């Protein structure tokens, strides 16, 4: 099962001829992801690593029955790439591009209402369902097929924590990087819901960080609807207020969104919060003993 992606997912790489796009196309192909097409406007008709390149997403979809895309397009063109994927009615769109202006994202989420597409990101590390498919930039070494669902706002921190889950022998059903920007297409709650419904997932790890209140809302949702055990890690406990920590999302403002508040909310929802990545192995052992 897994969530969002599996062996059947047929992926278009938007921006396949760019530096990051071509590198990660190779990486995804190595992972046996069904990369069925690439899109670079003006380069349609060519081929890269055996993947046919098209000028537009619609052409690529029509020719290959693709149902998902991953976007490596530079930030100035990424919003259009997202609209294009939405208009082509792809089921899943994963946007890796970072640095998209937040006002563009406001328009995109407004446009998404009532549409068929699920958008992951932007500024996402992508998705991996270990052993099945990878639609993202996550390094496979950190992941192993298993029963823990991971959802995260971060990139490398996700690899770090997942590697401990893998080393402890549990492995992951699916790992989703929802992206670190203030406005993203899919939030914690959306993923929690999918994990709760996924029979392959037996525990959920949520990796949050300071800024916003997505973790607080997720806590309320967990309290009400999630029966599976949830563990959480929150980065940024030592971050000073009002200093930007790289992710646009990680701004503490008006006393809200601090690590302390998030941890309090998670604890109140019965979520076990851990403070050191490698602790996760021991905690999962306790749960599954």
């Amino acid at each position: 099962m897994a969530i969002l992606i599996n062996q059947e997912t047929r992926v278009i790489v938007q921006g396949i001829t760019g530096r990051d796009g071509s590198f990660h196309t190779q990486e995804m192909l190595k992972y046996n992801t069904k990369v069925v097409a690439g899109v670079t406007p003006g380069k349609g008709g060519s081929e890269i690593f055996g993947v046919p390149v098209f000028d537009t997403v619609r052409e690529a979809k029509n020719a290959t029955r693709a149902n998902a895309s991953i976007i490596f397009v530079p930030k100035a063109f990424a919003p259009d790439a997202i609209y294009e994927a939405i208009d082509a009615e792809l089921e899943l769109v994963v946007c890796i591009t970072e640095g998209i202006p937040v006002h563009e994202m406001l328009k995109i989420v407004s446009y998404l209402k009532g549409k068929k597409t699920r958008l992951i990101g932007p500024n996402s590390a992508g998705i991996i369902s270990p052993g099945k498919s990878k639609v993202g930039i996550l390094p496979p070494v950190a992941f192993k097929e298993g029963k823990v669902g991971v959802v995260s706002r971060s990139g490398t921190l996700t690899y770090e924590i997942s590697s401990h889950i893998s080393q402890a022998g549990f492995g992951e059903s699916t790992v989703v990087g929802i992206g670190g920007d203030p406005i993203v297409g899919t939030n914690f709650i959306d993923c929690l819901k999918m994990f709760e419904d996924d029979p392959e997932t037996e525990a959920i790890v949520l990796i949050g960080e300071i800024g916003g209140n997505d973790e607080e809302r997720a806590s309320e949702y967990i309290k009400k609807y999630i029966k599976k055990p949830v563990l959480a890690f929150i980065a940024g406990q030592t971050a000073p207020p009002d200093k930007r920590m790289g992710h646009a999302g990680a701004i503490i403002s008006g006393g809200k969104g601090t690590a302390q508040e998030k941890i309090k909310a998670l604890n109140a929802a019965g979520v076990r919060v851990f403070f050191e990545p490698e602790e996760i192995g021991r905690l999962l052992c306790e749960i599954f003993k």
Partner: protein
Amino acid sequence: MKIHEYQAKEFFRKYNIPTPKEKLITNLDEVDLALSELNFPIVAKAQVLVGGRGKAGGVQFCQTPEELKEAVKRILSMTIKNLAVKKLLLAEAVKYEKEFYLGITIDRERRAPVLIASAAGGMDIEEIALRHPEQIVITELSPFLRLKSYKAREVGNVLFSDKELVNKFIEIAAKLTNIFFDYECNLVEINPLVLADRELVAVDAKIVFDDNGLYRHPELEALRDLDAEEKSELLAKQADLSYVKLTGHVGCIVNGAGLAMATMDLIKKYGAEPANFLDIGGSSSPQKMREAMRIILMDKNVRGILVNIFGGITRCDDVAQGLLWALKEEEIKVPIVARLTGTNELEARMLLENSPIVFARTMTEGVKKIVELTRS
């Protein structure tokens, strides 16, 4: 990017939002010229890019030229939260009956722009928001339609009983909304918006631009206050690194913001304080690592450096190359602990084999080692 009150007021004037009569000065000599245009009482306001200037004594109400000159002299010699006051805004004091709050920002929960207003404006709006949320009115905006006047009217009717004032409020709200959208702001704010003599006047002004949107508005770059930013932070920005200087002793270089924050948290957990946040970002190059080392070493508080890399896009051998480069060019007296995992991990180890760099296999091990090595 934040801008100063006086700069935000220029946007307000361009959009015809009423503001008090004001003059910007940078030294005492300019007071006389300013006085030829302004009438007493006058408020002298420190222009610094941090909050709390009022509580720090950076705002003073003056009745006479003597009083004003005294205040100017004093404030221009102040440092507020590590920032030296270099500019001062002299504003004709507005005798007002009531203070309101009006702001437009992005609500992450609603995933939409929101207009926020309150009849309880002034210094303690955050307190009000926490303790009396019922005194705050929030309305959602469409990024395509901006502010429709009926939405502004719904809010205005909560704030004012006088229809004429409601109409004035609607006008100001529409203009403020246009600034917000035209320049892709994260925040535009009037606090307080005051009621004085049946007029609404923006006594203070705050604008924060979305950093990701700045490239589409190149004219805004001129508004950046280079004095207000750490020199090392500016250098980092030029090198495309995300760096924030802090006050601890353990320098750290990490790839990814989340992992960087987690590393800082762990340093603190094991008894030390991080000297900085530094994210070398996703893409990989020895050059970036070299620059990161240079920037960290500018901080004389740093007693040791932890390099924590989980290679994905970032290749560990690129990181190692950058480290070797730095070792060669700089005279490095502090210990370095490196934890390099993931892509090309082995190559990296081989490169660094004969260097003075201490290896760690895990993040926790790396943190423990650097904390140990930097203990004073």
